[in-house]
């Protein structure tokens, strides 16, 4: 089959089809739900990989694009496609899917059919958001995703799961609803100027300026900022993360948060470049503040999962600085850093989940000396921790370096603050590592913990491989970003000369 839109659609909808099948399994076949879900998500990864390899970095604009009539009464079309930025996000989602499924095999024992169906439906929703080229489709996927996530947290979550899931849902939806009002305004404004009813993303470049542009920009920015989450809109995140089951946390941190930043890059900034120029610095400043705030809050946590959750606020803060500075290196770094954060934080949540399954506690004080009992696990956790801190040679370094390098020229103050956050991350992450893994085994319950099992190895190895791969040879990933990043900066009105993230000798 040609590598084209059909493959893209298969990659998007295969998980949904599998979800329906799994939900309809007879009760006595419930034990098949997990393996089937794994098979489906692995199968869905194949077309995604083919798309990634078949993507031509030299071509501008969207690839594998498809544009079909859908709701003709509204002028809405079914339009999907990928550029370099969405391709990386798409790939990350498809990659984390099987890992999230595999990590749930022992953790989830109740209502397994519904669980795996939700997980796979969520997968389709996320892939759809990244592939959408039409505002209505984008919005539909964006919101539809909330339903399975709500179930994942609300049914299989921890003690305060109901509070956390309702808060997550209402918080994110409330922000999105204002975005809906803004979409409608844009839609009719476009019609009154051109006579055409359309939701195509490409029709709305520089859609509004002045006071109106600012209001609309803020409506979009609020929806995206809640998802990122940008301080002070982050309060849903610790609750949702802590209460979610491990797979939910992996997806939440790995992919969902990125949608906020992706929304800024794909919609908010190109639609309203003028407003983004004005509001860019304050929003990036919120990001930079979030770096310090998230780091300090993470430092103060006793609960490992909460610590990782707050560290996400910090990491995404840096990414926001990079995405809004409109400097090619920083933007490219921001996109890569989104992938990095997805990998390393996903891996961190995975590891915390493994510990929790063994001891049913997430308090650092209950551990200590785990390195003696579970040496292999300790090594894995170390690599992941170092990746999160941004040690050179691992993936986190490349992304953070590019962001700081790019933004320093334009916003030195914010870059310096973000740099402070990078240093702080070493403090709290290594502090946590020390408390959990080093020292004597003080708690007798920890003496007999089994080390990593085969299934767990299968979960972490792909993540570790990519963490090292991006750290050592990032060109394989950056190469596909060049065109899209330059396009974004051009749409955003940045006056930068074309720039390549990959300096290849000829």
């Amino acid at each position, binding site marked *: 089959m040609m590598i084209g839109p059909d493959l893209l659609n298969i990659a998007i909808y295969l998980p949904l089809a599998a979800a329906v099948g799994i939900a309809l399994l007879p009760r006595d076949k419930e034990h098949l739900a997990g393996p089937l879900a794994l098979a489906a998500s692995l199968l869905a990864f194949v077309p995604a990989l083919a798309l990634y390899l078949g993507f031509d970095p030299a071509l501008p604009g969207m690839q594998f694009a498809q544009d079909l009539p859908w709701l003709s009464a*509204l002028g809405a079309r079914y339009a999907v496609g990928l550029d370099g930025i969405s391709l990386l996000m798409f790939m990350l989602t498809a990659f984390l899917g099987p890992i999230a499924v595999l990590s749930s095999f022992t953790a989830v024992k109740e*209502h397994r059919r519904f669980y795996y169906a939700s997980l796979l439906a969520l997968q389709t929703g996320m892939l759809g958001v990244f592939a959408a080229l039409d505002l209505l489709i984008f919005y539909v996927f964006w919101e539809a995703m909330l339903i399975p996530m709500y179930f994942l947290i609300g049914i299989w979550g921890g003690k305060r799961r*109901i509070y956390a899931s309702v808060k997550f849902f209402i918080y994110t939806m409330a922000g999105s609803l204002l975005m809906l009002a803004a979409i409608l305004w844009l839609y009719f404004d476009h019609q009154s100027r051109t006579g055409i009813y359309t939701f195509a993303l490409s029709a709305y470049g520089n859609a509004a300026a002045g006071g109106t542009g600012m209001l609309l920009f803020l409506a979009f920015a609020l929806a995206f900022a809640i998802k990122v989450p940008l301080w002070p809109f982050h309060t849903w995140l610790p609750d949702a993360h802590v209460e979610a089951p491990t797979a939910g946390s992996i997806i939440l941190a790995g992919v969902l948060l990125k949608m906020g930043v992706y929304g800024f890059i794909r919609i908010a900034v190109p639609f309203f470049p003028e407003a983004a120029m004005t509001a860019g610095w304050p929003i990036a400043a919120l990001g930079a503040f979030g770096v310090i705030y998230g780091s300090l809050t993470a430092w103060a946590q006793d609960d490992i999962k909460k610590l990782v959750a707050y560290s996400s606020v910090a990491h995404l803060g840096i990414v926001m600085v990079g995405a809004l500075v409109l400097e090619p290196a920083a933007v490219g770094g921001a996109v890569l850093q989104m992938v990095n954060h997805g990998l390393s934080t996903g891996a961190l949540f995975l590891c915390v989940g493994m510990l929790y399954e063994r001891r049913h506690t997430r308090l650092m004080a209950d551990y200590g000396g785990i390195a003696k009992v579970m040496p292999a696990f300790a090594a894995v956790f170390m690599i992941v921790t170092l990746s999160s801190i941004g040690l050179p040679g691992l993936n986190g370094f490349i992304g953070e370096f590019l962001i700081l390098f790019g933004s320093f020229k334009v916003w030195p103050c914010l870059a310096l603050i973000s740099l402070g956050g990078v240093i702080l991350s070493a403090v709290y992450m290594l502090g946590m590592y020390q408390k959990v893994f080093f020292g004597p085994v003080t708690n007798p319950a920890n003496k007999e913990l089994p080390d990593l099992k085969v299934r767990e190895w299968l979960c972490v190895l792909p993540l570790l491989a990519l963490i090292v791969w991006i750290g050592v040879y990032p060109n394989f990933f950056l190469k596909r970003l060049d065109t899209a990043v330059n396009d974004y900066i051009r749409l955003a009105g940045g006056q930068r000369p074309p720039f390549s993230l990959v300096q290849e000798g000829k």
Partner: protein
Amino acid sequence: MEKNLLDLTAPLLLVAVPAIVALLLRPAWAARAAGIGLFAALLNVSFGGPANIMPFGQSLVYDPLTKLLWLLILGAAFAAVDLTPRAACAAQLPANEYYFLLPISTVGLMAMLATGDLIGVFIALEVVSLPLYALAAARRTAAGAEAGYKYFLLGSFGAALTVLGIAFFYGSVGSVLIQSAAAISGLKVNQAAASAGFLLIMAGFAFKAALVPFHMWVPDVYEGAPTPVSAFMASAVKAGAVLILFRLFAAADLPLYYKIFWWAAALTMAAGNIAALPQAGVKRMLAYSSVAHAGYLLTGFMGGKAAFPAVYFYLAVYAAATIGAFSLVAILEKHEKGVTLADLRGLAAADPAKAALMAVFVLSLAGIPPLAGFFGKFWLFAQAVRGGSPGLVVIAVLASAVSLYYYLSIITAIYAGKADTPAAPRAGTPAMLWLLGSFVLLGGLAADFFLLPAANALPFLP
């Protein structure tokens, strides 16, 4: 000519005659008779000849618009009758009377939407209401009596307002045709009396549609009436009332009315959603939610006449979800007090099919994509933006955000709660519920199917 007249009367007779026959049959057969009648009428309207006749001037108009409106009303009535549980019928309702009164009320709704003059509208309104007064009071309990009494008193009050309004309107405009409302803005004398009169006419229907400040009866009546009757009132009757309101509103097209309806919409959405928040009884919660939905519909009115496809589509989706939700409540009802949130706990484990259906209906009412309720709301709000009321849309989306809380509380109870009592043996899930469920699930993705015919019927609006 005679054949044409038959085209017009056939659907009405197909509903009315089996209903009268139902009075004479045993309960099980009465149900079948009413259902068959409604279904036959539905088929007749769908596949009957081209409709374009006005045998008595404006008094009865059978055109493509009437056809569409009848399809909506008949569909809702058929679904409500089909989903009436046998058990509820035995315990709460005298079956023969129920299967007689409900179709007759439907005939009234059909007549109301097919007539172009205000006297006809008023008579039809009475035909709608009288059977409902009796049905609301069908339960011989204090709550049932309260429901019937309240509905009767306030309904009569609303009808009186309508008559008064017609008198004002006739006195100043000199016509009882709906389309003469367009003349109000051009009147040299008595313009105030005419516009006030027309507003009074609309007030009568605002009662039936449950707009603030005419919504006070809704929670008590929906809760006290037998649940199948509530389902009918919240879907078919409400759809009829909103449609006739829209017709009147669009016919007058007065800037003053836009202002009044702007506030009515804002207050209705706010009051309905806020009052629904603390409710523990599902029926009462759905009652307040139906008030809120009337507010969303009014938001769409801001788009004027061209908003008709949006209003129509939204009503179809809303009616399907509401009938579905109320019918599930009727099926799950075990005692006099109705279903509370606590009763829904653990439903997902006990009966996954009904749980999933309830979730679909509720999420659609909440307007979450990809369910049809989202597309309905989206297009409705779009009309308000097009009409130049983005402020009202902001209020509407904020109200929707508030509504999430109580809709989610239903879903949370179903899926995250554990049952207090062991699950009752599982009963079958009626096919009609699956039909409504799939419509609500997929209807939005195929909204063209509704929007395009409705857009084609636009020229027939007075």
